[in-house]
C-alpha cells in the first residue's frame, strides 16, 4: 500500500451518516479530518456516536450515506489493504476465555493474512511486554481482571508496526498507574510517527495526550481542531480567594466582571476587558482582603460545556 501524499489526512469522512436498523440516527453528516501524525481525541458524551463512527471507519458496519477514507483508501472497500496497518481497540477488549493471553494474541495475529508466521512468537512476546503482561501471559484470559483484559486488547492492537491506532476508550477499567502507562505508551507511539485516534469521555485524558480533538454530541460534530485552539476558544475565569466574598463580589461586578459566582471563600467570574491590575487595586481600595488573585486557564471541559451548552449528559 502506497504512502499518503504530504498533507493528506489519515482519516477523512464526508457527510458520513449512519442510521441503525430501528431508525436510530447515530451519526449525522460527519466531516472528520484526522491529520497524519496527530494524537486525535474524539470526544463526546455517552451515545453521541463515537463507537458507531469507529465501526464505520473499520468496515464493521456500512454507512447509510457519505464516504470515509482511511490511510487514503476508501472504507469499507479497501479493508484488506488498509486494516493490516491499523491497530484497533473497539468497545473494550474481547477475548477467548479458554485460551491463555498469549494464545489469544496468536489467534488474532493468525487472522491477519499480512502477518508473517515466522515472526509471530517474537511479535506476540514484544506486544505482551509492551503492555506489561509478560508475567500473566500464560494465564487463561477468563481469569484476567478488567484492566488485564484491557491491556491484552491493547497488545492485540500492537502486534504489528501500525500507521494508525484506533482506540475506543483505552483507559476504561485501568488503575491510575495503568492509565499513566497507557498515556506514556500513546505518546511513545505518536513520537514514532503512528497516528493515534482516541475516543474518550475523559476530558483531562484528552487534554493530557492529544494534539487535536473533535467534539460530538447526538451524532453531530460540533468542532474539531488543535487542542490548544479549542481551549483558547473558551475564555479563562478570574478567581479571587478572600475571607470577604460578598464585598469582593460587589466590587468585581462594579469593575465589569460578568457571571460572578460565590462559593465559600472563592469568587469567580468572567474577566473584563480592562487591565486586571486595576481590578485588583479596586478590591484592595475597597478593603477586601485578597488571598489569591488568578485567571484559571480554560480547560477543554470549559470549551466542551461552552460548545454543547448542556454539559456532559446523555441525550435520549
Amino acid at each position, binding site marked *: 500500500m502506497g504512502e499518503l501524499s504530504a498533507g493528506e489526512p489519515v482519516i477523512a469522512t464526508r457527510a458520513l451518516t449512519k442510521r441503525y436498523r430501528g431508525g436510530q440516527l447515530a451519526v449525522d453528516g460527519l466531516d472528520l479530518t484526522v491529520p497524519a501524525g496527530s494524537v486525535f481525541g474524539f470526544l463526546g458524551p455517552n451515545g453521541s456516536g463515537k463507537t458507531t463512527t469507529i465501526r464505520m471507519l*473499520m468496515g464493521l458496519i456500512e454507512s447509510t450515506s457519505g464516504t470515509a477514507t482511511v490511510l487514503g483508501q476508501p472504507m469499507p472497500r479497501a479493508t484488506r489493504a488498509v486494516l493490516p496497518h491499523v491497530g484497533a481497540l*473497539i*468497545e473494550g477488549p474481547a477475548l477467548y476465555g479458554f485460551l491463555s493471553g498469549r494464545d489469544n494474541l496468536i489467534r488474532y495475529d493468525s*487472522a491477519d493474512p499480512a502477518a508473517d508466521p515466522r515472526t509471530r512468537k517474537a511479535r506476540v512476546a514484544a506486544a505482551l511486554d*509492551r503492555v506489561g503482561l509478560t508475567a500473566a501471559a500464560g494465564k487463561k484470559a477468563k481469569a484476567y481482571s478488567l484492566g488485564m483484559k484491557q491491556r491484552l486488547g491493547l497488545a492485540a492492537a500492537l502486534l504489528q508496526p501500525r500507521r494508525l491506532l484506533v482506540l475506543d476508550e483505552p483507559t476504561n477499567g485501568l488503575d491510575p498507574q495503568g492509565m499513566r502507562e497507557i498515556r506514556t505508551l500513546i505518546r511513545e507511539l505518536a513520537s514514532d510517527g503512528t497516528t493515534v485516534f482516541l475516543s474518550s469521555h475523559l476530558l483531562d485524558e484528552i487534554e493530557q495526550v492529544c494534539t487535536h480533538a473533535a467534539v460530538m454530541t447526538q451524532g453531530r460534530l460540533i468542532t474539531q481542531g488543535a487542542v490548544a485552539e479549542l481551549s483558547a476558544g473558551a475564555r479563562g475565569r478570574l478567581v479571587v480567594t478572600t475571607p470577604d466574598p460578598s464585598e469582593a463580589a460587589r466590587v468585581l461586578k462594579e469593575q465589569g466582571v460578568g457571571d460572578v459566582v460565590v462559593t465559600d471563600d472563592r469568587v469567580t467570574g468572567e474577566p473584563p476587558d480592562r487591565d486586571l491590575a486595576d481590578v485588583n487595586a479596586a478590591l484592595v481600595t475597597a478593603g477586601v482582603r485578597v488571598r489569591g488573585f488568578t485567571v484559571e486557564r480554560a480547560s477543554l471541559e470549559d470549551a466542551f460545556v461552552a460548545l454543547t451548552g448542556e454539559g456532559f449528559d446523555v441525550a435520549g
Partner: protein
Amino acid sequence: MSLAENAGAVRPVSPLWTFGLLRSELTTTFRRWRTLALLAVLAGVPVLVGIAVKMETSDGSSPGGGGGGGPAFISQITNNGLFLVFTALAATLPFFLPMAIGVVAGDAIAGESNAGTLRYLLVAPAGRSRLLLTKYATVVIFCLAATLVVAVSALTVGALLFPLGDLTTISGTQISFAEGLGRALLIALAVAASLIGVAALGLFVSTLTGSGIAAMATTVGLLITVQILDQIPQLHALQPYFFSHYWLSFADLMREPVYWDDLAKNLGLQALYAAVFGSAAWARFTTKDITA
C-alpha cells in the same frame, strides 16, 4: 524496539500465510471444552452398544433383530466385531452426529459474535469471505473427525469384545477382513459426507443471530423437525429434498456389488445444500453490520 519503525513499508505477503487462519481455527475449535465433550459422547456410543450386545448374548442367544440398529448389522456383531463399526455409525447418524455438527456449526459465527471476538477477527483483517470459508472448512473437518471418532471407538471396542475375521455382505457373499476394513473406511467417509448439508445449514443459521446458543438450538431443532417430517407419508413428494432422506444409503456399501444409486443421490443432495446454504450464509455474512 520501535513498533512503528517499518510503518508504511510494504510487507511481503506469502499466499500460504492465509492458511494460518484455518490452523488457528482448528486448534481453537478442538481446544474448546465443548468440542471435546461432544467427541467424548460420540466415542461413548459404541462402547455402550458393544457392552449391551455382549451382555445380551453372554447366555448364548443371538441379539434381537434390527430394532433401530440399522440394517441387520447388530445381529452380526457377536460373530464379527467389525460389524460394531457399521452398527455404531447407523446408530449415531440419525441424531448424535448431526447434533454435534449442529452445535459446532451453529456456534461458528454466532459464538464469536456473542463473545465480541468477531469484530477483532474482522479488523485483523480476517476478511469476511475468508473467515466464512475457514469456518465452513473447519466444520467439515469436524464432521470427518466426529465420524472417525465413532468408527475408531467402535473398531476398538469390537476388537476387544468380539472375534474379528472374514465377513458376509448384505448380499450374502464373503469378503476378507482387510476388504471389510476398507469398506468400513468408505462407510465412515460416506457418513461424514452425509453431514455436509447440516453443516452448511448450521453455518447459515449462525450468520443470522448474535447468540451462539440460539443458533445451536435452531439448528438442532431443524434437524429434529426434518427427521420427523421425513416419516410422514403425506409429505413423500418433498422428502427426497430433506437432507436426511438418503442418510442410510451408506449401508449399500456393504452390498456386493456396491449399489451406488442412493449413495450418489445423497452426495448430490449434500452438495446442493452446501451450495444453497453456503451462498445464503455468504450473502448474509458479507453484508451484515457487525455491532456486537
